[in-house]
């Protein structure tokens, strides 16, 4: 069994497993539905998610503990994840393979030449880590002696500190003393600042933008699956549309097709996860290298080298993805995976230099307060940002969301959409609810999204908490916003047309929409002249009435000028005549000198803000289908007590304690 074939089997296995997890992420208990499939396993294995959230929330949440496994194995073996496990990498490798099948040997070699630009992904990684790390540093600077975790924290800090010192030492290329000071000075400044102000120093988790696992999940969930869904509602409850999906698709397909030009383009130049693994692989016990130098110098190994790490010369070990193609290609058996570094020389990492490192990290740190200076998280908050139920308050949310799209995938009504700029640049592709899309509103007994979120950006609510029962009865149900009626567009308010679709569909009990009756006078009724009338009918001069149009049971006839002003319900009408329901005839039939009004009975809706949970079913069902006449916005959402409309949500202004 050639090890290369094993690698191919492994790649195929994990790619199929990944796609399978994407397919089964639909509610249900059939074998091809959610059941207990661990659909977030790849996201949990992804150490960049774990590290990112560790920095931005100073916790390692639940399943993200899995991230330690690839880290430990990488420290021992090298970047096996990239070459053997990563499904995105497999896809790239496959397309790259298709692209170079017919190419000549020299062309293939040229395409796999090591390039300085492979350092870019490290810059991307440092930028993302910089953006995320504020929270951990603030936390560490605030930790006290009494905390039971103090011991672990100190130990961890000590170890990290030592590692950073070593790292710094190796990056330290020149003898200039001043340059050497930049690093420690930077950390000191950060600590000092952290103690004083939280405005300058904030975290934001942006790893999800380019981390391959969330990216691949996002692309499959929002583009590929909706496109291939056979339409018999097999893969999801309804045909899925996702706003702004074109951008996600473009990025995905660009990344995929770029492999035709340069194999594993994404892995080599963009992937921050690969960069992270590259850093971890420094001290690996086994590495690929030449057993003799000089070797036969045939350069066959470079022809199919996936990582562009140039095994033919000095191998850049941090770039090797352990595809082992070089081992397979070497005709003279002079390449091997062994303990000793390559006889032909080894370079540990692409040269990104101290300055590059510091600059990218500092820009990451600085970017966050810059993005938030507009007040988007405080006074300038966007009421159109309706987040899923169980979502954390916004700052905490942005520290956890990896934009994987799992919540969007599982949502049974398809209302969770990837955000555009509603949540600012930081919030691109984070979940936001759009009630015009999908098949209904946010179903008020559904707790799916939170249970599927791998980082707890959306908390897993219990059924009781969602509905506000038992232990949560005092808090009431979880609210994601409030519906507001646009009286200028609502049919009974502005158009004299009866409609109570919103009230009928309101799912909470008692309903959060109530109606008040209003009899609106129809315009043509002013000029009606009575010709003759009986106890149950009236005839008019001329043919003013629309025949048959007043028979729906909503129209009433009111007599003016007598003592009997009770509205009579119209049973039938012709062009010049109306008949009323027999239950309540006119004791004194209308006379020609009386006036008659035709009124339509409208039930005008009102929202009861003490009961409205913002589920959006009303907005979804509203027949004014463009800009809806009842729209939900984020006021009164449970996750932000400061946005409360009434007392129900205001009591605890310091609402969230992190675990």
């Amino acid at each position: 069994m050639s090890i290369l074939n094993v690698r191919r089997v492994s790649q195929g296995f994990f790619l199929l497993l990944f796609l399978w997890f994407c397919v089964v992420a639909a509610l249900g208990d059939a074998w091809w539905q959610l059941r207990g499939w661990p659909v977030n396993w790849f996201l949990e294995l992804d150490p960049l998610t774990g590290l990112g959230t560790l920095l931005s929330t100073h916790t390692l949440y639940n399943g993200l503990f899995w991230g330690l496994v690839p880290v430990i194995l990488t420290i021992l073996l090298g970047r096996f994840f990239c070459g053997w496990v990563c499904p995105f990498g497999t896809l790239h490798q496959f397309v790259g393979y298709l692209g170079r099948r017919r190419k000549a040997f020299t062309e293939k070699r040229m395409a796999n030449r090591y390039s300085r630009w492979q350092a870019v992904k490290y810059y991307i990684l440092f930028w993302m880590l910089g953006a995320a790390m504020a929270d951990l540093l603030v936390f560490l600077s605030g930790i006290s002696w009494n905390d039971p975790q103090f011991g672990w924290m100190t130990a961890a800090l000590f170890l990290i500190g030592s590692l950073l010192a070593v790292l710094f030492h190796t990056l330290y290329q020149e003898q200039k003393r001043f340059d050497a000071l930049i690093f420690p000075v930077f950390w000191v400044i950060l600590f000092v600042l952290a103690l004083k102000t939280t405005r300058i120093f904030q975290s934001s988790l942006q790893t999800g933008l380019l981390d391959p696992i969330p990216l691949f999940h996002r692309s499959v969930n929002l583009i590929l699956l909706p496109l291939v869904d056979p339409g018999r509602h097999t893969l999801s409850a309804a045909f899925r549309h996702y706003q702004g999906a074109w951008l996600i698709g473009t990025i995905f397909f660009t990344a995929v097709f770029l492999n035709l030009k340069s194999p594993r383009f994404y892995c080599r130049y963009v992937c921050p996860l690969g960069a992270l693994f590259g850093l971890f692989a420094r001290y690996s016990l086994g590495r690929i290298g030449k057993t003799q130098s000089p070797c036969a110098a045939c350069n066959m190994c470079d022809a199919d080298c996936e990582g562009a790490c140039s095994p033919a010369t000095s191998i850049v070990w941090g770039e090797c993805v352990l595809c082992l193609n070089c081992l397979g290609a070497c005709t003279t058996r002079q390449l091997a995976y062994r303990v000793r570094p390559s006889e032909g020389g080894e370079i540990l990492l692409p040269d990104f230099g101290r300055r590059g490192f510091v600059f990218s990290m500092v820009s990451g740190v600085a970017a966050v307060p810059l993005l938030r200076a507009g007040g988007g998280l405080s006074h300038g908050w966007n009421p159109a940002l309706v987040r899923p139920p169980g979502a954390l308050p916004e700052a905490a949310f942005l520290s956890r969301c990896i934009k994987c799209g799992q919540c969007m995938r599982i949502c049974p009504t398809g209302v969770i959409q990837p955000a555009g700029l509603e949540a600012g640049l930081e919030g691109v592709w984070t979940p936001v609810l759009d009630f015009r899309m999908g098949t209904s509103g946010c179903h008020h007994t559904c707790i799916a999204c939170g249970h599927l979120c791998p980082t707890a950006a959306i908390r897993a609510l219990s059924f009781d908490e969602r509905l506000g029962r038992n232990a949560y009865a005092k808090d009431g149900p979880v609210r994601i916003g409030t519906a507001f009626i646009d009286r200028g567009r609502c049919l009974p308010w502005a158009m004299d047309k009866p409609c109570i679709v919103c009230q009928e569909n309101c799912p909470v009990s008692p309903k959060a929409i109530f109606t008040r009756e209003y009899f609106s006078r129809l315009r043509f009724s002013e000029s009606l002249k009575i010709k003759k009338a009986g106890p149950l009918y009236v005839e008019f001069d001329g043919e003013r009435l629309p025949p048959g149009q007043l028979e729906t049971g909503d129209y009433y006839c009111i007599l003016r000028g007598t003592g009997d002003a009770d509205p009579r319900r119209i049973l039938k009408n012709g062009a010049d005549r109306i008949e009323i329901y027999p239950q309540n005839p006119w004791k004194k039939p209308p006379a020609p000198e009386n006036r008659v009004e035709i009124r339509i009975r409208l039930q005008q809706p009102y929202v009861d803000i003490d009961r409205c949970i913002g589920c959006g079913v009303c907005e979804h069902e509203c027949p004014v289908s463009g800009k809806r006449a009842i729209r939900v916005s984020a006021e009164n959402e449970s996750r932000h007590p400061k946005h409360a409309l009434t007392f129900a949500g205001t009591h605890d202004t310091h609402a969230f304690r992190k675990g």
Partner: protein
Amino acid sequence: MQKIDKHIKEYDRRQFFSRFFKAGFSIAAACTLGYGFYDPEGPHHASRHLSADPTADVFPDFSVPEARGRICRVREADRAKALGLALEALGGIGAFIRKGDRVLLKVNAAFASPPVLSATTHPLLVAEMIKHCFRAGAGEVVVTDNPINDPRSCFLLTGIGKAAEDAGARVVLPEERLFKPMTVPGAALIRNWPVLFEPFNGIDKVIGMAPVKDHHRSGASMTLKNWYGLLGGRRNIFHQKIHDIIMELSLLIRPTLVVLDGTTPMITNGPTGGSLSDLVTANTLIAGTDPVAADVLGATLLDKSAHDFPYIGKAEAAGAGTTDYRSLDFQEI
């Protein structure tokens, strides 16, 4: 040759062990980090409606035990003179302020209005009160309020800031760090709500000073409503339950004295007023230890009685004072 080979082997071994240790070290660091920060449960639900009552946290009782139950009404056009007469009738400022006391004056500086419009406490009255305090031997006098409009312009345009500083007091403008969440026991509204607490730290005596005003929502704004200026956060929401909040405020703080300025009460278009025609001349000053009684007296200046203001009844029922001012040591001048 052998020596070189041995050297190479040694070098290799050292290299290997060096890497081995570094690798082991990294693994240990990673595991420690992971374990140390491991959080299996994730962020918790924090009850918006606390199931257990948060621990009660109110201001200390600033009233002087020997000098309780006193109230007086003075008819005098000049404010400074009226204040002097009122304090005398209550037993002299010395009955309330001891030597070395640190005194805080809670004024009404809610709007950036000129003093003549009577929407805020009159600066002359503030200055006079400060002088009395110093005469009684006060160590320090602090003047504060959490205005509705911008604090700096409020204290400036009402004249209170300058009057206070000229008289030797210290003006404290509200800042976010000066607030802390406080809870009135048994309250439904003031639970963990930010209150302007810091300026009261180390204070021995508190004097509330407010003008008599009509108020569109509560009916009147007098000594009890004056404490609204201690609330922080988005306190506007309490306007939906204005009488309850005033009642809870009366339980939040018990002052040493209250001074109610009815020289030119605002009888209509309150609380901002804006026109001199909103005022009448009543030339009355009310002062005492019982804010409920003081408000009842103030109500008469608005041609109303205690029954017209539900919050007065609620405050009395809650034990903040009595509406029957005649049962107190009531002086009329």
